[in-house]
C-alpha cells in the first residue's frame, strides 16, 4: 500500500514514466534472487552431496553427477543417530519447559513493576546475557564431575536454561507489557487473586509471545555445541546430542571425514527445522525482534 504512494510521488516529481518502472522491477527480481540463493543454495549442495553414492561425494565437485541413492542415510542411522536425535529432543524440550515456566513468571512480574526497579533488574539480566558460555566450561566440568552430571541430560539442560533465561525474560517482558493492565484489574474486581489473574487472564493472552519464545529457546538449545561436546562428548545411548554427533562422525579411513554420512545427517536435521521455520515464520520474527530490537 505504502509502496503505491511512493511510486506516485516519484512519478509526480520525476517525469520519466515507463522504462524506469520496468527496470526497477528487474532490479527487484534480481535482488530477490540474490537473497534467496544466498540463503538456499548451500542446501542444494548439501542435499545433492548427501545423495551421492560411494566415494562420488568426496571426489566429484559436480553437483549433478551420479550415481545417486540413499545408502548414506542408512549409514547415518546405523551409527545410532536416532539416539542422538532423542537426546537433543529431550534436552531441548526440558530447556524450553523450564525457561518458559520460570521465565514467564519473572517476565510478568517485571512487566508490572514500576519502571525504576524494572530497570535495575533488567540491567542485571542483560549482564547475564553477556556471559560467554566458555567461562562456565572449566568450573562446571569440575562440579559436574564431582556430583556425577557429566554425560547426563541434566548436565546440559541446566546450564542451557541459565543461558536462555535472559532472552526469555526479555522477549516475554515485551509481550506481557503489551497486555493492558485493565484486563487484570477487571479479573480482580470479579474476585480473582493476583495469581489467578495471571494464569487465567494474562498468560493465555500472552500465548503467541510464549510460543515464539519457546521456539527460539528450543532452537538455541538444540544447536548448542560447546557445552554439549565438553560435558557429553561420546555415547549416543546416554547423552550425546545431534551437533556433537555431526561433528564427530568417523569414517573407515582415519583423518578423513565421511562426507556422505555427515551431509546425510545434516539433511535429516535440517528438513524438520526448515519446516518449523517456515510454518512459524511470523511468530519467530516477532519474538526475535522483541528480544533485541524494539524501536
Amino acid at each position, binding site marked *: 500500500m505504502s509502496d503505491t*504512494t511512493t511510486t506516485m*510521488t*516519484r512519478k509526480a516529481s520525476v517525469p520519466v514514466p515507463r522504462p524506469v518502472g520496468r527496470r526497477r522491477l528487474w532490479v*527487484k527480481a534480481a535482488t530477490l534472487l540474490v*537473497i534467496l540463493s544466498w*540463503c538456499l543454495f548451500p542446501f542444494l549442495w548439501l542435499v545433492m552431496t548427501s545423495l551421492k553414492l560411494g566415494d562420488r561425494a568426496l571426489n566429484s*565437485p*559436480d553437483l549433478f553427477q551420479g550415481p545417486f541413492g540413499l545408502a548414506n542415510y542408512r549409514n547415518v542411522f546405523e551409527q545410532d543417530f536416532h539416539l542422538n536425535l532423542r537426546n537433543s529432543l529431550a534436552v531441548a524440550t526440558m530447556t524450553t519447559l*523450564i525457561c518458559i515456566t*520460570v521465565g514467564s513468571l*519473572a517476565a510478568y*512480574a517485571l512487566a*508490572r513493576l*514500576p519502571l525504576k526497579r*524494572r*530497570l535495575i*533488574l533488567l*540491567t542485571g539480566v*542483560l*549482564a*547475564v546475557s*553477556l*556471559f*560467554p558460555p*566458555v*567461562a*562456565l*566450561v*572449566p*568450573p562446571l*566440568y569440575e*562440579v559436574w564431575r564431582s556430583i556425577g552430571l557429566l554425560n547426563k541430560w541434566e548436565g546440559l539442560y541446566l*546450564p542451557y536454561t*541459565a*543461558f536462555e533465561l535472559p532472552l526469555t525474560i*526479555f522477549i516475554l*517482558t515485551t509481550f506481557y507489557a503489551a497486555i493492558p493492565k485493565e484486563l487484570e484489574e477487571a479479573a480482580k474486581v470479579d*474476585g480473582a*487473586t*493476583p*495469581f489467578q489473574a495471571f494464569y487465567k487472564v494474562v498468560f493465555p493472552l500472552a500465548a503467541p509471545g510464549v510460543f515464539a519464545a519457546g521456539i527460539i529457546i528450543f532452537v538455541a538449545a538444540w*544447536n548448542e555445541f*560447546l557445552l554439549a561436546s565438553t560435558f557429553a562428548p561420546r555415547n549416543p545411548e546416554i547423552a550425546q546430542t545431534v551437533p556433537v554427533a*555431526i561433528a564427530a562422525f568417523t569414517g573407515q579411513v582415519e583423518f578423513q571425514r565421511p*562426507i556422505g554420512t*555427515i551431509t546425510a545427517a*545434516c539433511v535429516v*536435521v535440517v528438513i524438520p*527445522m*526448515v519446516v518449523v*521455520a*517456515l510454518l512459524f*515464520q511470523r511468530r519467530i*520474527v516477532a519474538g*526475535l*525482534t522483541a528480544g*533485541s*530490537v*524494539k*524501536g
Partner: protein
Amino acid sequence: MTRVRPATADETRSDVAPPRRRGSGLSERALARVFVAPSLILMALVALFPVLYAVVLSLFEYTRRERQGFAGLGNYVAALSDDRFWSALWFTIVFTVTSVAAEFVIGLGFALLMNQTFRGRGITRAAILIPWVIPTVIAAQMWFFMFNVTPGFINSVFGLGDFNWLGQPGWATFAIVFADVWKTAPFVALLLLAGLQTIPVEITESAMVDGAGRWQRLWYITLPLLRPAILVALLFRTVDALRVYDLVAVMTGGAFDTESLSVLVQQYVVRTPDPGYGSALSTLTFILILGIGLVFVRALGRDIAIGRTEGAR
C-alpha cells in the same frame, strides 16, 4: 508511581486490593518477588556461581586433575606470558571485527532491499530465517566441505584447481569468517528490517519531495533513524562473535592460526586437563568479553533495557 520506599511487611498487607477474598492469594508485591525469585536463583546457581568458582580454581596448581597446592596468581602469569593466549586473542578480535563488519554491511543491504520489495517479501523473509535456524555445526561442516580440496566445490566453481583454503593461515581465517557471515548476515538483516519498518514512510517521502537523492536519503534520514536498531544488532553480534567456538572447532580445529579463545579454554578441560590453568584462561576470557559488552551497553545508554520493554506499549 511515586512509591520508591522499600515496602515493609505492614505496607504489603495494606496494599492488598479491598475485594480480596479468603487468605489464599498473595499480595501483588509479594507475588512479584515470588515470581522473580526462581529465575534469579537459577541464574545465580548455574551461571554466576561457576564464574566465581573458576576464580577459586584458578588460584591452584594442578598436575592433570590432581591438586598440587596453592599457586597464587601463577596461572595468570603463565597465561599472560603464553604466546598461544595472545594469538588466540588476536584471532578472536580479527574474526569479530571482520565478521561483524561484513555482516552489518550485507545485512543492511538485504534489509534495505527487502524493505522496498513488496512482492515476494514473504518468501524472502522465510528464506532468511533458514541460515539462522540450522545448527552452526551443520553450517560449519557444509562450508568445510565446500572449501575443502576434496570434493573442491568452491575451487571448481572459480577454477582454482587445488587451492587449499583451509590448510594455510589467512585463508583459513577467511573461510571461517565467510561461513559466519553466511549464517548470520540474514539474521542481522532481519533485525535491521524490523527497525526500518518503524520509520514512517512520510519522512523519507518528504525528503524525496525536497529533492534528496537516494544516497542522501540513506545517509541523512534512514541511517540516523535506524541508529538504535543498528547499535543493538552490533552489540549482540559482537558479543556473540567473541565467543566463537563451533565454526573453528569443526572447520580447522584451531590449526593455522585460527584458535579462538573459546577453543583454547576448552582444550584445558578434556584434551589436556588442567582445571587451574583452564580456569585462569576462562576467567580472563570472561573479563574480556563481559568488559567489551559492558562498554557497548554503556555507550548505548540504558535505553536498550527501556526501549525493549517500553516499545511494545
